[in-house]
């Protein structure tokens, strides 16, 4: 009987082993494989899927002949005289450990040339550490943690403005309002989800506020996915700050806005980091309640009309058919990173990681999908032309209010109280 038992175990083991080894790898000529590592499932899946669609749209622009689009590499098919880009999708579920092992699989097993990713800063960190150790390129579109580019990595490049840049801009805007509009904003409240993202944003907000003499009177981290935000908003209301910086994603954002309405309180001005504010779907569900809030943005349809006409073409032709919505400021930057990488490969003339990385470190690239129109990385990988504008929403329309260069509308200030809407 023991032998039987043992042989059954042995058969099971062999079966399992053979199943594992049967993973196939197809190799085709003239293909450059690029990994797209995003949270395709889990809490951040919507954003992750948008990001992948943006990368796929960019790949289509490069791979197909698009004489109608005036962008580098768009006109003819492929790059490097006929190479096509193939995107290998991977899902990290928003978990750092999965991001790390999927990054390894992409580089080692799928043999990708570079990886674009990974939305959540906490996933980008270990995934890019894999790349750095293996001396492979990691392109990061929209993860905003300032710590990412303070690690002095040599193969890491990031397009988005960091929390630090955004915080400074928010405070500059408040200084402008105080000076030009006699706004009298002296105190600041912070409300943010107690996660990697929210915590980073809050730290940078503290630094920026200290620099300009704003007093932080309320610092309210909350647990994301909370059942209610009553105590959080009540704490804010009790401290009654003039301005509030918010970092609440998706459902937490709408819960926060609705709870403020419920307790009938508003600060003079509320500015959001890259959060639920920028999500048109969330704003639609909030209906009028989301109006007059502000937030940092790298893209809006209105901005695109004036400053990025080619991006709208790309959006119409390749992005919207995939995702049924316009670009948003997160996803568009992932597509940008593929364009930048492809231009660097084209310039290097070969698939030599060292050469391409060197070009990425030194050259400046034109970019039709960036607000500033160009991309250049400083040591550490931060895009020096990273730019975000402050917008204010009214009737589902994001109107740019700052910097003045991009201003489209005068801000409604202070925010219209709930009972006057």
């Amino acid at each position, binding site marked *: 009987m023991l032998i039987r038992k043992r042989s059954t175990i042995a058969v099971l083991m062999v079966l399992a082993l053979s199943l594992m080894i049967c993973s196939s790898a197809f190799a085709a000529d003239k293909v450059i494989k690029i990994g797209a590592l995003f949270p395709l499932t889990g809490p951040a899946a919507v954003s992750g899927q948008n990001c992948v669609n943006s990368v796929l749209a960019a790949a289509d622009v490069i791979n197909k002949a698009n004489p109608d689009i005036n962008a580098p590499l768009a006109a003819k098919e492929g790059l490097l005289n006929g190479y096509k880009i193939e995107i290998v999708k991977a899902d990290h579920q928003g978990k750092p450990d999965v991001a790390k092992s999927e990054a390894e699989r992409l580089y080692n097993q799928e043999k990708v040339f570079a990886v674009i990713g990974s939305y959540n800063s906490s996933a980008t960190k270990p995934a890019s550490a894999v790349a750095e150790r293996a001396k492979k390129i990691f392109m990061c579109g929209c993860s905003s943690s300032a710590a990412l580019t303070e690690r002095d990595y040599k193969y890491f490049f990031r397009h988005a403005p960091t929390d630090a840049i955004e915080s400074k801009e928010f405070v500059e805007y408040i200084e402008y309002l105080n000076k030009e509009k006699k706004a009298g904003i002296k105190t600041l409240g912070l409300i943010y989800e107690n996660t990697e993202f929210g915590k980073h944003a809050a730290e940078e907000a503290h630094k920026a506020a200290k620099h300009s003499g704003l007093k932080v009177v309320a610092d309210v981290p909350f647990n994301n996915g909370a059942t209610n935000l*009553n*105590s959080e908003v009540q704490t804010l209301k009790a401290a009654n700050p003039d301005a509030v910086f918010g970092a609440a994603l998706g459902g937490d954002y*709408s*819960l926060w806005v609705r709870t403020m309405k419920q307790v009938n309180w508003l600060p003079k001005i509320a500015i959001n980091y890259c959060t639920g504010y920028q999500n048109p779907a969330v704003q639609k*569900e909030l*209906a009028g309640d989301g109006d007059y809030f502000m937030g940092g943005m790298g893209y809006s349809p209105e901005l695109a009309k004036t400053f990025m006409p080619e991006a709208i073409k790309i959006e119409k032709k390749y992005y919207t058919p995939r995702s049924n919505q316009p670009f948003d400021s997160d996803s568009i930057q992932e597509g940008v990173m593929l364009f930048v990488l492809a231009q660097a490969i084209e310039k290097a003339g070969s698939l030599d990681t060292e050469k391409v990385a060197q070009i990425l470190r030194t050259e400046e690239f034109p970019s039709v999908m960036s607000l500033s129109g160009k991309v250049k990385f400083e040591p550490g990988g931060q895009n020096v032309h990273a730019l975000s504008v402050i917008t204010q929403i009214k009737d589902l329309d994001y109107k740019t209010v700052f910097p003045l260069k991009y201003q489209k509308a005068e801000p409604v200030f202070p925010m219209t109280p709930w009972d006057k809407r």
Partner: protein
Amino acid sequence: MSNFVQVLIDGILSGLLYALVSAGLSMMWGVMDVINFAHGEFLMVAMYLCYWIGEILGIDPLFSWIAGGIFLFIIGALTYKLIIKNSLGKAAMAPLLATFGLSMLLKNFCMNRFTPNFRLLSGTIMEGKTFEFAGAIVSVPQLVTAIFSLAVLLSVYWLIKKTRVGWAIQATAMDKEAAELMGIDTENIYLLVFGIGGACVGVAGGLMTTYLAVHPEVGGLFSLIAFVVVALGGFGSIPGALFAALLIGLVESFAGFYIAAVVKYVAVFAIYLVVILIRPKGLFGW
């Protein structure tokens, strides 16, 4: 002072909501000694149902909670028939783990079908309605949910204590074999208990769609709090659940405002541990 009243009212209102969410779980546990791990996902399913009814048919959650209750009655009964019945008595934690599997299945099914987007009904009848009371602001949807909670708890309590079916349920809970000897069809009783348990959480989910966004992960924290409420209240005791839920709501609200918002759930779970270590069978347990 107005802060204090506000925090007190917030605590009571969310406590009553937790009571409504926990009532069903309390029954299942009390009668069958089964923990339904998919309880939070039941809540999520009800919320999705009422969301879509509101979105597509334009029926307000103020009415569509009935559909939520009926649908979850069926889901609850099916869960019993297909999963609980077959795993009961096989291994110590088998029903718990089987329903954990069910929760994964439901959560990811909704993620797959409805995307993980947050969905919030707008323009509902009670949306944003508030009134002032003793210097504090009371939200009408939360107040209505709280009233429903009391009504549902009272009717379940009445059902168990005053009706023949209720006596049969009590008999089954005390001693299954003896109840069978007395001619009670314990199979049907179990089915009924799971159905009613589902219906309670269905009603809760339906009403919550007015003020809480629905997404596939929405049930997670609610089910944890429901576990704590039920264990704190004591083995299947409806008054116990009500009392425990109020305690949890108040602790959450007061700790959230007077200590720090970020520790409110720490306080909730800590108070549970403290009480349960003093009274290992819960406040009203025997």
